[in-house]
Every structure is written in structure tokens, then in C-alpha cells.
């Protein structure tokens, strides 16, 4: 592993600029932030619709039903995927000390992927969505996305295959994720569309929804945590044995979880039981990973206050533990009777996608943008606002929706008129609008800060290059 503090003229190590195409990392992050705002807009439209405040009700291209799908797809394929690709273009070459297969291919993938995501958004906006949850990408884009995923895997595997000996934890996760993402996308988008229908297709779409979280987002994100956290804390991961347990436990149990999205459907009951048991097993595995990371920060707790990326990462980990703990309960048939179909699940999904992975990406961006721009953040205060508005906003939203889910579930079980469950939801949905607005305000702080930093970096180019250290952001990392 190469450290930022290693001087560039050590003979045996390749220089940073030979390894990392910084411009590409930057562009990926900017694309990710662009799609994040598209997704936030979709969420806002849906939230306003539910409380009857939608000013554009009845306009086809602002239809909340379509924007709900843009909301989830822009997060998965726009925000999360672009953030990953950006961060991986930084992490993998620096871990393996080799550049990716080809810079030209990297730029081609960047452009191609933006075309895929934009076409997805436009296709959904024109009412061509595919009936696969989280895979609403119109059917004519699916083959393109599949080829894109293959190219991504080839481009990143090139430096990894040349490494010798046992690999570092992050690379286990990355390698497995390249295989899993490709297989998951193929399974979820083609099988229920062309090969199977009905109940067995339900089992497959269940696997797809969950594998997209568990075999694409989760392993890549944990791989990046295993990379960034030791660098920022300047010490190794606490226990190598627990790293092994975490990876192999995830690899075995996570793919078996999918059917828990469709409990009490006509899918055979023994498969549902299997999914439930595996899901609870995942919670145990997750606990070992969390213990490992808290063992790592043990003794350096002060970093949570002083080091902003570390604070983002560990807040995300606390939320991760909470969502997984929640998951191990909500997956049981007893909980399902009440909370299935309710906003409980929506709260859970927001806490895990934004509260965990979103927060981690913001941590990586807070760490990497000053290095990419060769300039400190314009304002630490705006960074702090970004953190507090995002973390508190999403926590309030999730808590609000999870509590609401209990109300909705018990209203339904008690056979009250359907409208009663809508009426009881209104105050919670109003709280959700304001929690969402807080999250949006946090992201606006972030982009304003980024814009100002970029302006400063342009103006101060000469000054920065003349100074000894290009960046000295103690509170954004090492």
C-alpha cells in the first residue's frame, strides 16, 4: 500500500500521477453529485405529492410515479456507481501500484456510463420503465449497461491480476464485487423479462433487489472503508482474522437473502425460511466487521472530532449497524405481518442507502476533493454544515418513517378503512418533507463549498505550487 506521505522520488515506487488519473476521479465525483441532485428532486416531488403540496400535480413529465423510479435509479446507477468508479480509480492503482488497463478505456467507460444513466432517466421519464424494482432501466438499455459492467471489471482487474501473494482485504471485496455485479445485473434484468414469469420470477427479482445492495454496493463500499480508514488513522486494521470472517461470511450468506423481500408470497415457504435464516446470519457477520472497525479506531477516538472524513465513515458505520440490526428483526415473519408494505421499509432503505453509503461517499469526497484540487476546502464550516444536515436529516427521516410504518401496519391489521392509514400518515409525511429539505440543504452547502474551493484553486495555482506541501488539511485526513 502506498502512503500519501511517501515522497514521490523513492525509486522503487511508481509516482502518484503515473497511477491515478485524477481528472477522471474528479469527473466521476462531479457526475455523482449531479445525479444526486436529480435523485433528491425525485424524492422531493414524491414527498410533496404525499402531503398534497405538489405544485405540478397532473404534469406528465413531472409525474411522481415516474420520478419515484428516477429517484431510486439515479441513486443506484448515477450517484452510487459514479462515486464508486471515481473512488476505485483512486484506490485500486494506489493499492496495487499499477495503473488501470487503459486510460483511454477509462474515459470511454466514463462517457458510456453517463450515456447509460441519462438514457435510463429519459426512458423512465417517457414511461418506458421495466417492471423490475431498482432495475427499471428500460429493456433496450440493459445490454449496454451489461457491456459497461464487463468493461469496468476488465479495466480494474488488469492491475489486480499482476499482484503477487496474498491480497489486501479491499481487493478481495473489489474482485468479488466485479463478478457479482455483472452476474446480478444479468440475472435481474434479463431472466424475469425473457425467461420466467410469475412466482419464480418473483424469487429472482427479490434476489436482484437484494444482491444489488449486498453484492454490488456493500462489498465495494466496505472495500473502500478497509482502504481509507487505515490510511486516515495511520494504523492497520485491528484484526486480520475478523476481516476474513467478514468477507467470507458476506460472500456466503448475502446471496441467499433475496427472497426475504417477498415473504408470505406464493414463493415456497422453505425458501422463505432459508432467506430469513441467512439474513439473520448476515447480521452476525456484520457485527464482526463493525467490531473490527471500532477495534481499529480504539485509542484514536479523538479523530471523530478532528478528522471529518473519519467522522463521516464512522457515522455511516453506526447507521450500518443500526440498519442491519433492524433488518435482522424486520425479516422475521412476526415483524413482517405488521411492517411489510409500510413506510418502515422505506425508512430502512433510506437509512442504509443515504445514511450509510451516501455518508461514506461524502467522507471520501471530503478527503479527496482537496487533494484533487490541490487546495484546502474553502470553508470548514460549510463542511460541518454538510455533515450535520445530512446525518441528522437522514436520521430524523428514517426514524420518522420507521415509526410511521408501525402505525400504518397496525391500522391495516385492524381492518380500519384504508383512508384512515393515509390520514394517520400525514403528520409523519410532513416531518419527512422537512427532514428531506434538511438533507437537500446539506448537499447545497457541499456544492457551494466545492464551487468556492474550485475558484480558489484556480486563483491560487501559483501560490499553492510554490508552497512546500500542496495541501495541509489536517481535518480532512492525513
Amino acid at each position, binding site marked *: 500500500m502506498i502512503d500519501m506521505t511517501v515522497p514521490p522520488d523513492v525509486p522503487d515506487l511508481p509516482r502518484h500521477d503515473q497511477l491515478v488519473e485524477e481528472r477522471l476521479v474528479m469527473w466521476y465525483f462531479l457526475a455523482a453529485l449531479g445525479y444526486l441532485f436529480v435523485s433528491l428532486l425525485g424524492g422531493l416531488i414524491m414527498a410533496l405529492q404525499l402531503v398534497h403540496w405538489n405544485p405540478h400535480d397532473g404534469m406528465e413529465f413531472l409525474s411522481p410515479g415516474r420520478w419515484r423510479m428516477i429517484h431510486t435509479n439515479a441513486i443506484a446507477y448515477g450517484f452510487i456507481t459514479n462515486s464508486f468508479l471515481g473512488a476505485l480509480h483512486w484506490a485500486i492503482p494506489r493499492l496495487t501500484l499499477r495503473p488501470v488497463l487503459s486510460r483511454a478505456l477509462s474515459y470511454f467507460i466514463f462517457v458510456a456510463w453517463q450515456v447509460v444513466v441519462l438514457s435510463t432517466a429519459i426512458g423512465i421519464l417517457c414511461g418506458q420503465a421495466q*417492471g423490475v424494482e431498482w432495475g427499471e432501466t428500460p429493456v433496450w438499455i440493459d445490454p449496454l449497461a451489461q457491456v459497461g459492467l464487463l468493461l469496468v471489471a476488465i479495466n480494474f482487474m488488469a492491475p489486480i491480476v499482476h499482484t503477487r501473494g496474498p491480497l489486501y482485504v479491499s481487493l478481495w471485496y473489489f474482485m468479488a464485487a466485479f463478478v457479482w455485479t455483472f452476474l446480478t445485473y444479468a440475472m435481474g434484468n434479463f431472466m424475469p423479462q425473457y425467461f420466467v414469469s410469475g412466482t419464480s420470477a418473483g424469487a429472482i427479482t427479490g434476489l436482484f433487489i437484494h444482491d444489488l445492495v449486498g453484492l454490488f454496493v456493500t462489498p465495494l463500499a466496505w472495500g473502500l472503508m478497509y482502504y481509507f480508514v487505515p490510511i486516515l488513522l495511520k494504523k492497520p486494521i485491528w484484526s486480520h482474522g475478523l476481516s476474513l470472517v467478514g468477507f467470507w461470511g458476506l460472500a456466503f450468506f448475502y446471496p441467499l437473502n433475496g427472497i426475504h423481500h417477498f415473504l408470505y408470497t406464493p414463493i415456497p415457504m422453505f425458501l422463505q425460511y432459508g432467506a430469513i435464516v441467512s439474513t439473520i446470519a448476515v447480521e452476525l457477520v456484520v457485527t464482526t466487521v463493525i467490531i473490527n472497525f471500532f477495534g481499529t479506531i480504539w485509542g484514536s477516538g479523538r479523530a471523530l472530532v478532528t478528522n471529518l472524513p473519519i467522522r463521516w465513515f464512522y457515522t455511516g458505520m453506526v447507521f450500518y449497524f443500526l440498519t442491519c440490526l433492524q433488518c435482522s428483526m424486520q425479516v422475521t415473519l412476526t415483524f413482517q405481518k405488521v411492517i411489510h408494505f409500510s413506510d418502515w421499509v422505506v425508512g430502512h432503505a433510506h437509512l442504509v442507502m443515504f445514511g450509510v453509503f451516501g455518508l461514506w461517499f461524502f467522507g471520501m469526497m471530503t478527503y479527496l476533493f482537496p487533494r484533487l484540487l490541490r487546495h484546502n476546502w474553502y470553508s470548514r464550516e460549510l463542511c460541518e454544515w454538510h455533515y450535520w444536515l445530512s446525518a441528522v436529516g437522514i436520521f430524523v427521516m428514517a426514524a420518522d418513517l420507521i415509526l410511521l410504518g408501525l402505525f400504518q401496519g397496525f391500522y391495516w391489521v385492524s381492518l380500519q378503512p384504508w383512508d384512515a392509514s393515509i390520514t394517520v400518515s400525514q403528520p409523519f409525511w410532513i416531518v419527512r418533507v422537512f427532514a428531506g429539505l434538511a438533507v437537500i440543504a446539506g448537499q447545497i452547502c457541499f456544492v457551494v463549498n466545492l464551487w468556492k474551493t474550485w475558484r480558489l484553486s484556480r486563483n491560487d495555482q501559483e501560490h499553492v505550487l510554490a508552497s512546500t506541501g500542496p495541501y495541509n488539511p489536517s481535518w480532512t485526513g492525513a
Partner: protein
Amino acid sequence: MFENKSGILLIGGLGFFLFAFLSNAVVPILMFRHLPEKTAEEVVNENLLYQFEELNFRYPEQFKKYFGEPTPENCAKALRIGRDVYVGEGCWHCHSQFVRPVSNESRRWGPVAQTIEYQNELQRPVLFGTRRVGPDLSREGGRRSNDWHAVHFFDPSSLSTDSPMPRYPWFFDGSPDKPNERGLAVITYIQWLGSWLESYPLYENYKSIEEQMSNPLE
């Protein structure tokens, strides 16, 4: 094995994924392989045709313009278009299509969902759904009239106060008495849901809160 490339790629990446795929996806496919997948033509039934003819009777000009005659073939065509509208508009993100055997659901919605009901072309991809902002729709057919659905799509709050459902004026040529191709198709699709059941049509079976709270002996 646990820290090198081949172990991770072959055992973790491919092996465990295939194990899960075989046990969780291939097993149900094999279990239900004796249930043939029906086409849209095969799922058109008399209950649905009655509603389809009623649409022709109620909106003759619009019907003639978009679907011609109310034949079973045109009904199947309407079902396919209606399903695409249902998916494209994201209806399935707020309305589920299965009744669970728990939580009093069979008392509210009707018979519990069975595999055989989903073995048809219109459930490709399957539309179980994972969220209910609005009611489950798998037994909705025949429960409400075609013109109720037309007005409801045009402006849901005019029929159910406080409904957060969005308006769909693009299902109409200007007014709720002029459903266009998408409007007629999606109404046909909704009327199809549950029309294959013996218990069709199924009316929502609940008592008002006053009645629930009152003493039945009084």
C-alpha cells in the same frame, strides 16, 4: 485460498453466487415448471369481456378510435398496453398485487394469492410489489365501475378525499369522459385483476369505525 485471486473469484465470486442462484431461483422454476405460462389472449375471460364491452358502450367514440370492436383479441391488446402503462407510470410502486395469508388480509382483499394466478405473460416481470401507499389491486377487478376508474384517474381526490394519488390527465383527451388509448387500456387492465376468481367481484369487507366500536348486542 481465502486471500488469493482464484479462491476469491471462483469460490466467493462465482461459486457462492451460483449456489444461491441454484437454491433460490432454479428450485422454484423447477417446482412450477408444470404450470404453463398463459398468453394475454388466454387470460381474457367473460367477466373481463363484459367490462371491455361496457367501456365500448360508455365511451363509444373513444373506444372505436383506439380499439375498434370489443373483441377478445382487442381485449388482449388492451391488456398488454394497460400492463405497460401500469409499469411505466410506476403504479406498482404504490399498489401491491398479492394477498398474504396473514394480518387479516384475506378479510380485506379476498382469497390469498396463489402461484397459478401469476403464470401468465402479463406477470413478466412479476408485479408483486413491495409497498402499499394505496390498496392492493390483485382483486380490484369488478369492484368498481369503469366510469369510477375514469374519474378517479382524472382526479383521484374527487372520489376519495385525502387520497395522495397523483392525477393522470394524460390518460384522457381533455376530460374524464374521453379516456384515450392509455386510459382505456389501463382501466381494462385494472378490471382484469382478480376477474379469474370464483369469488369475483369481491367487495371490500370492513365495518365503519363506529360500528366496530359499538356493542353488537345493543
